[in-house]
């Protein structure tokens, strides 16, 4: 996919001198800027392109030269990664866990943010700061007690246990982001709905939630990336091999590489893990970059 993007490149070079009024200094600055940015782009793209290329080579070809093209394009590497290395089953686990956690955290987070943003009640400030604490403290502080909480509930090493922990740790970010979003919505509309006889439930689900759609979309993308890429939580509380998610699966695969060297399949596995997030990124890239800026304006 890295290569596809390169094709869309909107003629970065060669257009610099379009206007006659550009001074010599402009050209120099533009030239230097383009050179530096092009170098940086290469630094990003070359490792990814190299990974893609290597994923089609046999192990001995990889060892022979890091640059050579494969003699025969080894699509078998992908089959091996998917079946033998178990990436296929990890993939399905990840889809289930991330999908379920994402839906739950978006619903719960939106509800919580809505109440905090639009109702005044004793303790609402305290809850807000409690959420801030969840964002500030390192997850490592919580990881040991969390292990035993899940163990006592019988949720250790189960997918539901992983889902609920994902929900809990994605909650503060979700609430924070949506809090400002609900705060900015005009209160007249909610009041109008109420006057029309809609209860609190209906006001939320039929009026306010649809209005918050743009905010929900941005948060959902960030949560998707964060949860899909999560590694520490599953490694600590989801240690049964058949329940592995992708990130731990590929780490385990890479870990045993020292003994049974199949580098081609390892590169193929890396590509398999990257493709879903890259597709998401390309589909939503405008929205994602937009929400980076929205997030910083608070």
């Amino acid at each position: 996919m890295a290569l596809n993007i390169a094709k869309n490149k909107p003629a970065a070079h060669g257009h610099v001198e379009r206007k006659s009024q550009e001074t010599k200094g402009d050209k120099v600055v533009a030239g230097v800027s383009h050179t530096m940015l092009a170098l940086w782009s290469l630094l990003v793209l070359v490792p990814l392109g190299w990974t893609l290329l290597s994923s089609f080579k046999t192990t001995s070809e990889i060892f022979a030269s890091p640059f050579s093209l494969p003699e025969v394009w080894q699509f078998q590497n992908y089959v091996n990664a998917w079946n033998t290395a178990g990436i296929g089953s990890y993939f399905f686990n990840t889809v289930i866990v991330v999908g379920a956690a994402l839906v739950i955290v978006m619903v719960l987070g939106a509800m919580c943010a809505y109440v905090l943003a639009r109702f005044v009640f004793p303790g609402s400030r305290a809850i807000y700061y409690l959420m801030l604490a969840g964002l500030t403290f390192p997850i490592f502080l919580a990881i040991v007690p969390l292990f035993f909480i899940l163990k006592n509930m019988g949720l250790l090493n189960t997918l539901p246990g992983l889902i609920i922990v994902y929900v809990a740790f994605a909650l503060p970010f979700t609430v924070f982001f949506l809090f400002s979003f609900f705060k900015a919505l005009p209160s007249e509309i909610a009041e109008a709905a109420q006057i029309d006889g809609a209860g609190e439930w209906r006001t939320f689900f039929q009026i306010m939630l649809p209005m918050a759609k743009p905010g929900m979309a941005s948060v959902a993308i960030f949560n998707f990336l964060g949860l899909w890429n999560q590694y520490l939580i599953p490694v600590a509380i989801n240690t049964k091999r058949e329940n592995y998610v992708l990130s731990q699966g590929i780490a385990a695969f890479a870990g045993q590489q020292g003994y049974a060297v199949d580098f081609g399949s390892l590169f193929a596995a890396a590509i398999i893990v990257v493709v879903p997030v890259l597709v998401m990124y390309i589909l939503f890239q405008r929205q994602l970059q937009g929400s980076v800026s929205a997030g910083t304006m608070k």
Partner: protein
Amino acid sequence: MTQVTNEVQSGGGVVATARRRRKKLTFDKVSFMAVFLGLPLVIYLVFVISPFVQAVYYSMTSWSGFDNNMPFVGLGNYVKLFNDDIFMLSVRNSIVLAIFLPVITVILALVLATLVTIGGSSRGQIKGLKGAGFYRIVSFFPYVIPAVVIGIIWAQIFNPDNGLLNGILTGIGLDGFKDFPWLGDSRTAMIASMVVIVWGFVGFYMILFIAAIKGIPAETFEAARIDGAGRFRTAINITIPLIRDNIQTAYVYMGILALDAFVYMSILNSTGGPENSTLVMSQKLFTTAFSKGQFGLACAMGVVLAVITLIFSALVFLVNRWTGGNKDVSE
């Protein structure tokens, strides 16, 4: 629905009664608050807040985790930690990361963001570089790639036998780097690890800064230009002061990430690297807890990590304050 709407629009008196009615505790309202606030809050308290609190208590016991026997040892674990040379080394490594990673990442991101936004013509409207969209898309790539995969890819790039880096270096004639173990030599392992993390995050902060720079009104730049400021002066004297809040945010995020760094460090060098040169606190905590079963001690490490994280954030805020961060430069 429409009928009701028409009725309401007819008079203000209805609004007043409706407002009063909302104050009453109806079933609708009670059930709404219970579910909307109660449910998320219970999950959050049970799985996030209570572990934080418990960790502080466990850190004062010598609990091994597999029975309910938790001998209270007070600050004994902390004393043990400060006398543990390997733990102190991991603290040092974490602090090294927290010092260098934010500086390098933020500076690189600022430079790239500046090039993209004000690299264009110096006449007419202020505009960015041509092809800025392409650079933005490419730069953001690494941020969406799972950290585990970034670690695996770079571990292969640094691979002494078949890695890309040594391939390039020997390719351009630097034969001395043939078979050089970047991650296996205590002189280079830490630097190589830092390169990986910087690679993963520069693009994200670059996008963040680009957005911030675009938020500065164009008149500000035009005024600076009329006053005769060149691009470099504009970047130093106008752009950076105006986006310093964003820089502070980026700095804090990056520092918190550097103090964690678990994924990158454990994938690049799972056992802490040559002579523990890349061992960080989070890795030490993880093995102490889940390999050795010293849960009390591991929680004490967690507390130390949390305290260092808070000190770091406070320091960044204070430094920004002292250097005039709260002055409104735009006036």
